[in-house]
């Protein structure tokens, strides 16, 4: 299994999901060799053997070198292509490369790569190197696995290389697509190409929701017969309930996530303004950071609700749980959300959740309130109702708590195992 990160050192939800999948598979009797670019050694290895790609030398397997290069050629992306960076960084990256005179093809075999395992400026370069190392690892461990499973586009080239070199079936797991990261006209074409290639090369494409499945089918042109939805789950074991003294007597409505276009922060602010026109004893919190934060602050000021609308900045670890403990309503108005695990965390913290229909989580959460992200009237109405009608809040809280406790990885991975069996048998 090729991943990009694994707890405890994670930047996003992907690592957490991978851990859940690996543990769930172990429960279902499936062993996993987990390959990641940069392991720290403190990962929980009780369920899977973790292979650190940074420790693996790219072997010079003479008889297959030509073959290897031919087959993995497509992943040799020019390393000056750097996504998600400011122009200044871009130029300094190029300057640095010119100085060091690094070229992809000059990388010799027998050399170890040091991966950062982050999502930085030379991400694409790392992705392509990861593919080469991935191929080598696949050859080394050829006798130990039956199937290759790759998580999100960063690992698809590694998955393809491994498939080409071993002939074993490939499953790619789509946790997010380019269309969830930017708006339709801002899609990174290089990432899109890698994603599409990975999905085409795969024997099965696993998506985290039907919403994502539809994107894979319609926007990547993948044959629906090989695309299977396995909804995410969540692991709450070993988590303590936090009790926090409240500083304010007002009710608190919370948005928690990156403040980016995809998460729909402006719809939340508009709904908040509508609710505040009607009732005063409520406060709104936007927890997180992101490229739309400044715009969000300006919007709040323009609407004249800044005395009731608060920004916390980025929260981590226990702060997240503390924020949930302080909240009466959680809201996720995402414009496009492949799954969205945080409403599950809110519900687990006894906070009723309002989520958009445009999220994968809406497909599995019966007891969350659901609205269209653009329908700020409905959103305002739901917020108001949860604050004003205690029976509704009690019901949604209690049923929601029970519901998310039932969404276990063991069930999701049982479905994943069936997907495996369908391709291994072939």
């Amino acid at each position, binding site marked *: 299994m090729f991943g990009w990160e694994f707890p405890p050192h994670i930047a996003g939800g992907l690592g957490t999901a991978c851990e859940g999948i690996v543990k769930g598979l172990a429960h279902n009797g499936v062993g996993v060799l987990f390959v990641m670019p940069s392991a720290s050694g403190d990962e929980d290895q009780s369920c899977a053997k973790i292979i650190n790609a940074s420790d693996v030398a790219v072997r010079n397997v003479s008889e297959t070198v030509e073959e290897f290069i031919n087959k993995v050629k497509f992943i040799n992306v020019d390393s000056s292509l750097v996504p998600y960076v400011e122009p200044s960084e871009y130029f300094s990256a190029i300057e640095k490369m010119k100085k060091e005179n690094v070229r992809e093809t000059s990388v010799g075999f027998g050399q170890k790569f040091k991966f950062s395992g982050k999502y930085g400026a030379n991400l694409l370069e790392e992705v392509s190197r990861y593919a080469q190392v991935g191929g080598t690892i696949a050859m080394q461990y050829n006798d130990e696995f039956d199937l290759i499973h790759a998580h999100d586009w960063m690992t698809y080239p590694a998955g393809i290389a491994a498939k080409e070199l071993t002939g074993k079936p490939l499953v790619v797991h789509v946790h997010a697509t380019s269309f969830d990261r930017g708006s339709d006209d801002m899609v990174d074409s290089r990432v899109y190409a890698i994603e599409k290639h990975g999905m085409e090369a795969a024997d099965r494409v696993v998506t985290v929701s039907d919403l994502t499945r539809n994107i894979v089918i319609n926007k990547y042109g993948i044959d629906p017969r090989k695309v299977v939805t396995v909804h995410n789950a969540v692991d709450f074991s070993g988590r303590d309930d936090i009790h926090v003294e409240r500083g304010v007597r007002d009710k608190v409505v919370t948005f928690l996530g990156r403040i980016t276009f995809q998460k729909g922060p402006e719809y939340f602010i508009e709904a908040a303004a509508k609710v505040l026109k009607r009732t005063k004893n409520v406060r709104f919190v936007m927890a997180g950071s992101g490229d739309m934060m400044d715009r969000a602050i300006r919007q709040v000021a323009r609407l004249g609700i800044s005395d009731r609308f608060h920004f916390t900045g980025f929260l981590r670890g226990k702060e997240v749980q503390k924020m949930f403990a302080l909240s009466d309503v959680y809201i996720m108005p995402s414009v496009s959300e492949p799954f969205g695990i945080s409403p599950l965390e809110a519900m687990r913290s006894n906070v009723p959740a309002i989520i958009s229909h445009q999220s994968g989580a809406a497909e599995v959460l019966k007891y969350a309130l659901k609205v269209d992200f653009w329908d700020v009237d409905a959103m305002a109405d739901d917020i108001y*109702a949860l604050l004003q009608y205690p029976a509704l809040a009690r019901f949604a809280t209690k*049923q929601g708590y029970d519901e998310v406790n039932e969404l276990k990885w063991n069930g999701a991975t049982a479905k994943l195992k069936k997907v495996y069996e369908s391709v291994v048998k072939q």
Partner: protein
Amino acid sequence: MKKSVCLYFQVHQPSRLRLYRFFDIGKDSHYYDDFANRTILKRIAQKCYLPMNELLLEQIKKCKGKLKIAFSISGSALEQFDRYAPEVTESFRKLAETGKVEFLCETYNHSLSSLASKQEFENQVLRHKAAIEHYFGMTPKTFRNTELIYSDNIGKEVYDLGFKTMLTEGARHIMGWMSPNYLYNNEFKSGLKILLRNYSLSDDIAFRFSNKAWSEWPLTAEKYVGWLKGSDGELVNLFMDYETFGEHQSADCGIFDFMRAFTELVAKDDELEFVTPSRAAAKHRSVGEISVPEPISWADEERDLSAWLGNELQQDAFHKLYALEEKLSLADDEALWADYGHLQESDHFYYMCTKFFSDGEVHSRFNPYATPYEAFINYMNVLGDFSIRLDNAIAEKTV
């Protein structure tokens, strides 16, 4: 003595609420989705009420008075007929004029008041009784409660209101070894006769008729009459929603032809005869009392109240609504009473049911809301405005 066949049809249409946001509270006190109510009523009138009334009228004439039927038409439905399709009231009136049709009494708004307040229940019953007298010129003697809800205590209240016969469900869990095909009487008041629905034979028509996966499909009148004859007891009570004919079971599955053939066969038969509920109560002797300590209904597999009062949302909305009763008597405002009645319709609570959250197929067919949450929020917003109006009306009066 011929075996009795008692046909009774329920006619009701709810006052569906419009999308009522909290911004509307205190600003706009029109609560109803007039467009949906009109469209749905007109559709059902064309597909069911008008053609089926005409069919029954023809059959009553053709069978020379041997076909007898009973209807219960809620006040909410009568109001909608007046507003959107007065020809429906007219066609029911023609049926009334044959003298072969009994009109039953129920709660005016198809409400759950029997479970909430003795006083409001009485109001609702008397209001409906007056409406039936007004529309059809006859005083109802038989009572059927909303959704056939019944308990020993409700029966006693109904008897005290002057009724001699009452209808309910032959629910398996209260019947035990007993058959619904006999006449029974109330646990406390032997003067109140109880007719029990034969759910199996009723549902053969109401639910299974067009189901091609059913082993008995297609159901012919001959086969069905054979089942009636073959059943035990003295009396078969076939109670169903009137919308069965042409709406739930569409015309092209042959339901109208079936009813035509079925009514003629029974009318001609030596062993069977149609009776109205009042006639059944007079003709048969009670075989004993039936004990129903907890309320039953004809809904769902459970035959209890869980479709309306099964979850906390429903219970909260229900209690909040009936908590306003005392204030309402102080306000004494006709428009408020009318809205109070419409807000009592059991349908509003049914929409909040979470029993079938996952496979809401049956429920969703009759449900304008996508989720029970939406139903609850919308209802509570309306109720919020209603309470403000109520408080204002009381304040004005005391000034």
